[in-house]
């Protein structure tokens, strides 16, 4: 054969499609999106018994070829050869579940009617046996005239037989197209299965039932769920810190290496601050993303995730979401990026979009340093308890925001049809660590590739905004001051310098360092970001902010935590410890000459509220763009969140004027 044969893998959701796909292709897979829709396209390469390569396309899970979701539409279109981006497959692997053959054959028989060769794979024969169901695959094989392979994909039982089938010339099934409706198809399937499936009559209690008695128990079920979530968050906030520090350190080291080897100048600053800083700011999220997908992958792999949706559905239904939105939203409390990526477990494109749009309101971990700093400024004499209370208030505000906007979007996006929630609860199964690992690997790769490229570009733009244009006068003064500083520093370091000379040099160094800080502050004020801060001052004044805070807002558009380091440069002219920045900020007076502090309770509250809602995370914008496949939603997200943040902060500042 000249080009490798292409097999499409087709089946209902929860049939073990991904497991079989992984078993066939190993690590030789590619994950992308189908152009124009937010449906994931997975292809991989396998090898048959003759050593020939074949391609496998893992088509989205579907219940029927009468498509009712974007995912099912992709499956239908690919099988009909209607998608230009995907060649029509040469043959189809129909994966069916042994414990519910009738329903699974519904799709499989529709596929057989497409005039494509098929191989039927009867999966989960072990689970079926627990239910007292045995399938005579040989009988089906005779009736259909195509290979019918019994399998336990997660234990890799049946792979040999499947390989034999894959290596033979594929054949079309001996199946007469069904005329008529759903009931007619079920009747035809019933006839096909006559005498081929044996059900044991006695009632059985499956291991899954035993697990469910505990895991969805009205008391223990919640305890276990909260225990798992507690473990997840503990891991995210404490254990993830170690690899994150390592990454931070590694990028810092890399920056130092470049600084040591390159002459000072714009190019060096671009590389260290723009590129290394920008990429480092993305890669630092990787540990959290991997941990989240480890937990989510494990929950999904074992079948527990469906139970979480089952338990949480009632709480999400009030605002028009369903239980499947729970895990993505919860993940967003660590970081909206994996949260949005986790919306892929939701079938409905509409629900996925709504969840993606509201995910950034959840109080992600990047907000914490900003909150901590502002709360400390707001309550300089406050007790730890009072500060914690404010922090709790911010989390409550974000939960209310999530609910409110879910409600709004649910109203705004008219449903084509009343949504019906059908939540399939698959049998529990032993987790496959290999599969969980592959999922983590995939997600990590997608995150780095997809978010990384956009963020790299945007962080360079942002770096340029805070650097250019330069004032030649300030540049000159800076260069002079640095030259003097270096000279005096050498004097100080030299052993031959006299004591009185040393003192004098020390004084000069101190003065020049201060001068440089002042010039750096001036330079930032002169830069595009500084000018933007000034330009937006009239707009943010009603919120209680001045142009310096404006610079902070502009800079933290890239990432919220940048606020702290930007404030450091704005007020001190250099990167400094948070404590000293805060001290300086607390001493800052208003520009209006009243002598009142710039960071009073009202301004701090207003800033806090702004940071709860504002969309200030380029990584999230990039991921939203990728996951929704359009700039439209990414831009809408930025506009509605930042717009609402503005209004909410305005209301906070103005209304609090009546109380304070």
């Amino acid at each position, binding site marked *: 054969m000249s080009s490798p044969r292409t097999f499409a893998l087709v089946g209902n959701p929860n049939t073990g499609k991904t497991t079989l796909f992984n078993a066939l292709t190993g690590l030789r897979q590619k994950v992308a999106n189908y152009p124009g829709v937010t449906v994931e396209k997975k292809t991989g390469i396998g090898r048959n018994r003759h050593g020939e390569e074949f391609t496998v396309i893992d088509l989205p899970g579907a219940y029927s070829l009468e498509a009712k979701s974007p995912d099912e539409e992709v499956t239908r279109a690919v099988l009909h050869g209607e998608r230009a981006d995907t060649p029509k497959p040469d043959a189809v692997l129909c994966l069916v579940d042994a414990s519910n053959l009738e329903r699974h054959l519904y799709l499989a028989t529709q596929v057989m009617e497409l005039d494509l060769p098929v191989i039927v794979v009867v999966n989960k024969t072990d689970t079926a046996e627990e239910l007292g169901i045995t399938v005579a695959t040989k009988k089906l094989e005779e009736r259909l005239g195509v290979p019918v392979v019994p399998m336990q994909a997660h234990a890799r039982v049946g792979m040999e037989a499947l390989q034999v089938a894959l290596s033979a010339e594929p054949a079309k099934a001996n199946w007469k197209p069904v005329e008529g409706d759903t*009931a007619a198809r079920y009747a035809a399937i019933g006839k096909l299965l006559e005498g081929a499936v044996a059900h044991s009559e006695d009632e059985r209690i499956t291991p899954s039932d035993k697990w469910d008695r505990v895991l969805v128990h009205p008391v223990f079920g919640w305890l276990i769920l909260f225990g798992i979530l507690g473990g997840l968050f503990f891991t995210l906030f404490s254990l993830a810190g170690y690899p994150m520090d390592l990454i931070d350190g590694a990028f810092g080291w890399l920056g130092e290496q470049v600084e040591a080897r390159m002459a000072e100048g714009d190019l060096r600053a671009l590389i260290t601050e723009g590129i290394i800083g920008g990429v480092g700011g993305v890669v630092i999220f990787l540990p959290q993303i991997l941990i989240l997908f480890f937990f989510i992958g494990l929950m999904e792999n074992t079948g527990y995730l469906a139970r979480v949706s089952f*338990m949480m559905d009632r709480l999400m239904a009030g605002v028009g979401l369903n239980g499947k939105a729970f895990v993505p939203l919860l993940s967003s409390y660590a970081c909206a990026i994996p949260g949005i990526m986790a919306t892929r477990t939701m079938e409905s494109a509409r629900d996925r979009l709504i969840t993606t749009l509201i995910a950034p309101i959840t109080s992600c971990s990047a907000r914490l340093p900003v909150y901590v700093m502002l709360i400390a400024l707001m309550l300089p004499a406050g007790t730890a308890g009072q500060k914690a209370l404010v922090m709790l208030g911010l989390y409550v505000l974000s939960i209310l925001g999530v609910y409110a906007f879910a409600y709004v979007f649910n109203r705004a996006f008219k449903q084509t049809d009343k949504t019906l929630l*059908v939540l399939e609860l698959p049998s529990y199964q032993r987790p496959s660590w290999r599969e969980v690992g592959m999922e983590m690997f995939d997600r990590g790769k997608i995150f780095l590739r997809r978010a990384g490229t956009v963020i790299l570009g945007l962080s360079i733009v942002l770096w340029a905004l805070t650097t250019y244009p330069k004032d030649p006068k300030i540049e000159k003064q800076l260069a002079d001051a640095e030259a003097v500083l270096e000279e005096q520093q050498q004097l100080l370091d030299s052993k031959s310098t006299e004591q009185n000379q040393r003192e004098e040099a020390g004084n000069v160094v101190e003065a020049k360092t201060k001068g440089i800080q002042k010039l750096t502050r001036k330079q930032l004020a002169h830069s595009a970001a500084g000018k933007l801060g000034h330009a937006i001052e009239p707009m943010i004044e009603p919120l209680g902010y001045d142009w310096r805070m404006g610079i902070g807002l502009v800079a933290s558009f890239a990432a919220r935590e940048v606020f702290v380091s930007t404030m450091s440069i704005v007020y001190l002219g250099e990167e400094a410890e948070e404590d000293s920045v805060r001290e300086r900020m607390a001493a800052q007076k208003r520009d209006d000459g009243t002598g009142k502090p710039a960071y009073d309770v009202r301004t701090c509250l207003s800033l806090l509220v702004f940071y709860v809602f504002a969309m200030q995370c380029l990584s999230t914008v990039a991921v939203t763009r990728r996951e929704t496949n359009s700039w439209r939603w990414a831009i809408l997200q930025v506009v509605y969140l930042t717009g609402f943040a503005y209004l909410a902060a305005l209301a906070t500042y103005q209304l609090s004027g009546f109380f304070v």
Partner: protein
Amino acid sequence: MSDLHHIGQLSEGESAELGSVELPEAAAERLAEMGMLPGASIRMIRRAPLGCPIEFEVGGARLALRRADAAQIFVQ
């Protein structure tokens, strides 16, 4: 048994024979494709801890439906 009209009224472990489904067409069709056809047997397994949704067994599969939807699925 005379009070039993729809599957939302089944108690834990109780089985019934499905009748008509009074849901929008696409929803009804999806349920039919999943085996919820008139005459098929359905068994109530359990309610979610908060009372909704409700888990049923249809064919060999476990499906959870919301109470409001279940109330539109009648028994014979």
